[in-house]
């Protein structure tokens, strides 16, 4: 069955295309791009006024399944992903049990075939049980289909274990995706060390707790030749450490979350709003501006949401006791379009690079482009469509958004995966 999309703006910096044209999709791929195209059989859909871009990937989500199904499941999390404009998500391993064996990877991927609304890749743990003591069976997990390895949620504290993991991963030629946090410096603090921690009387988490751990991992990557990707960077110093390592040729990439691009510690006021409790914590305006600059100049390769669903009772607590994180899958694209692209802080092309191409390159997924022959994993944007993130908006199981009740102009209205509609006019259809 063929599909003809008519009249949209086709935009993809890597395929070097920015023009209004029609696309024919057939056999799961882009068959033809051109003006005034026609098909004999199949659907013709007029999407004039919208923008077709390569499908977005969120390489850092927590689907909480198995073990915390009250927060999110494979089904609900991937539904949220499609609703937010993503074709593909990569799920972290910090479930219960931790995904640290081939059997566990197989179980998730098997269920994903039945339950998922979009493409799902699964990380395996670096260390058994993510305890940071013994290597997990990486080769076994890789054979079962793991996309890469990560102990995200906690940092690997032991230098020797991290070196061993990198040596082993470099043998397997697979990236390690690293949550960098020096626990001896941070010690359970849950707010940035600085003005906010002083004002609110909280133990502060120093910026150095991140950049020092990143510097260690870069040194180890340089030693072992392992490909590493740094999760959710949040400080100016980390940007600088990574910029320098890249200049020196270290095989390192990194990601940033929308909340670190858009919010600072100043947002946390005397109401101690736990929806703003993140790990890493929200930082300063200086940090935020450095992140935006690094996003534009390519020091930061990807935007990833660190989608972290939690039940209301886990957030409605004292700040010290509340769970870390915000949901992100359904707010990322509208927020970035509204607050970074529309405001001119980054270009739409940069957004596409960091949401579509960056993560695919880091994880070595199939290249998707707006070009004939490419797999038809596509996201369709409407820059004029306004959305409000109220409780009814969210289709994921949890609604712990740092942007709750805010609005944004611009969103993904449609998602195609392998040429099939996964999201059609903002309704999840797959």
């Amino acid at each position, binding site marked *: 069955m063929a599909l003809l999309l008519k009249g949209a703006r086709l935009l993809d910096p890597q395929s070097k295309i920015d023009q209004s044209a029609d696309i024919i999709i057939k056999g799961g791929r882009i068959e033809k791009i051109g003006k005034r195209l026609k098909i004999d059989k199949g659907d013709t859909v007029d999407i004039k006024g919208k923008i077709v871009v390569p499908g977005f990937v969120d390489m850092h989500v927590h689907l909480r399944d198995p073990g915390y199904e009250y927060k999110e499941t494979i089904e609900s999390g991937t539904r949220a992903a499609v609703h937010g404009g993503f074709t593909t998500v990569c799920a972290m391993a910090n479930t219960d049990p931790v995904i640290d064996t081939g059997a566990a990877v197989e179980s998730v991927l098997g269920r994903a075939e039945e339950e998922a609304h979009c493409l799902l890749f699964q990380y395996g743990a670096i260390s058994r049980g993510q305890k940071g003591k013994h290597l997990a069976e990486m080769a076994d997990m890789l054979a079962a289909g793991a996309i890469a390895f990560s102990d995200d949620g906690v940092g690997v504290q032991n230098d020797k274990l991290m070196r061993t993991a990198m040596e082993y991963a470099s043998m397997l030629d697979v990236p390690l995706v690293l949550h960098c946090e020096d626990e001896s410096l941070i010690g359970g603090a849950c707010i940035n*060390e*600085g*003005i906010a*921690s*002083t*004002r*609110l*009387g*909280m*133990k*502060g988490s120093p910026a150095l707790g991140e950049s020092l751990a990143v510097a260690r991992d870069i040194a180890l990557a340089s030693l072992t030749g392992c490909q590493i990707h740094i999760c959710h960077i949040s400080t100016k110093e980390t940007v600088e450490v990574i910029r320098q390592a890249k200049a020196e040729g270290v095989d390192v990439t990194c990601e940033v979350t929308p909340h670190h691009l858009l919010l600072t510690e100043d947002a946390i006021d*005397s*109401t*101690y709003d736990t929806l703003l409790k993140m790990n890493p914590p929200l930082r300063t305006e200086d940090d935020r501006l450095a992140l935006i600059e690094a996003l534009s100049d390519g020091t930061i390769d990807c935007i990833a949401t660190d989608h972290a669903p939690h039940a209301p*009772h886990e957030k*409605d*607590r*004292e*700040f*010290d*006791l509340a769970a870390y994180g915000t949901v992100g899958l359904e707010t990322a694209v509208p927020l970035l379009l509204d607050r970074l692209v529309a405001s001119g802080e980054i270009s739409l092309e940069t957004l596409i690079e960091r949401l579509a191409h960056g993560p695919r390159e880091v994880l070595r997924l199939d290249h998707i482009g707006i070009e004939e022959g490419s797999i038809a994993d596509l996201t369709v944007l409407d820059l004029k469509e306004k959305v409000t993130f109220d409780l009814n908006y969210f289709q994921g199981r949890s609604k712990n958004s740092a942007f709750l009740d805010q609005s944004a102009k611009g969103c993904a209205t449609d998602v195609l995966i392998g040429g099939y509609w996964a999201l059609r006019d903002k309704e999840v259809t797959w």
Partner: protein
Amino acid sequence: MKSHNLITMDDVSVDDIDTILETAHSFKEVNERAIKKLPTLRGFTVINVFLEPSTRTRTSFEIAGKRLGADVINFSASSSATEKGESLADTAATLDAMACDIAIVRSKFSGAPAILARRMNAHIINGGDGMHQHPTQTLLDLFTLKEHLGKIKGKRVGIVGDISHSRVAGSLAPGLKMMGAEPIFIAPPTFLPAVPEVLGAEVSYSLDEVINDLDVVYLLRIQGERADGTAVPSMREYSALYGMNRARMDRLPEHAIVMHPGPMNRGIEISADVADDPRSVVLDQVSAGVAIRMAIMYLMMGGDQNGAAA
């Protein structure tokens, strides 16, 4: 008063503070009578929600409430549902359903009073939250300081000790600043918050360098577990550098006073003879605590400063 609640010093204006101090003055006189009880808050319910152990502050609020004729109920962590895993939000909603008028909350977690404020109609008074603030302590300190030195404005107040973990310092520095005094934190950097200026205080690492110019030496209690090498090497070394002793007392200006929020560690931050010196006003702070807490509850429930001693 400008706010429904008293959670931080931001909830009171300079005028509010003046009113509270004046009202407390008249309640202090009541506390010196043979019959100390007033009918002012008869029929009102005050609940002490103490989620970490505290005898002094809880007792002070309890006496203050009872002297005003209110029914005062103590809800403490050891006897409550919180031990069984109930969230503070549920505890607050439960207490709200019982209809109380004033809730005093003490918690080891910064920001806990904000949770009660969201869930309860009662006026919330912060009885000390984590490392954040302890505003009634500050108000009683301002009262005591004014009683002894005649005015607050322009006074140089050295706050000595573990500032970063101290809710007393967290309220006192901004409170002094509001009233035109000059707070100065005196501590090693390991005992200072990340950005001390946020609290409106200057910083000195040396008590000996600044002691000649102080009008008040305000000593904070040193927690034993922080003087074990994690923040300062030992109690002994802390005491040598920052303890208030006879030699330093002799260098303090004649008119200056020594304050301490209690309970004191004699021999650590304060030597026994300084604790018992006439210029140590620690017990005056305790008496002021009752009067100040009476004044706050009275004003919160709509009293005016003239009716206080009726």
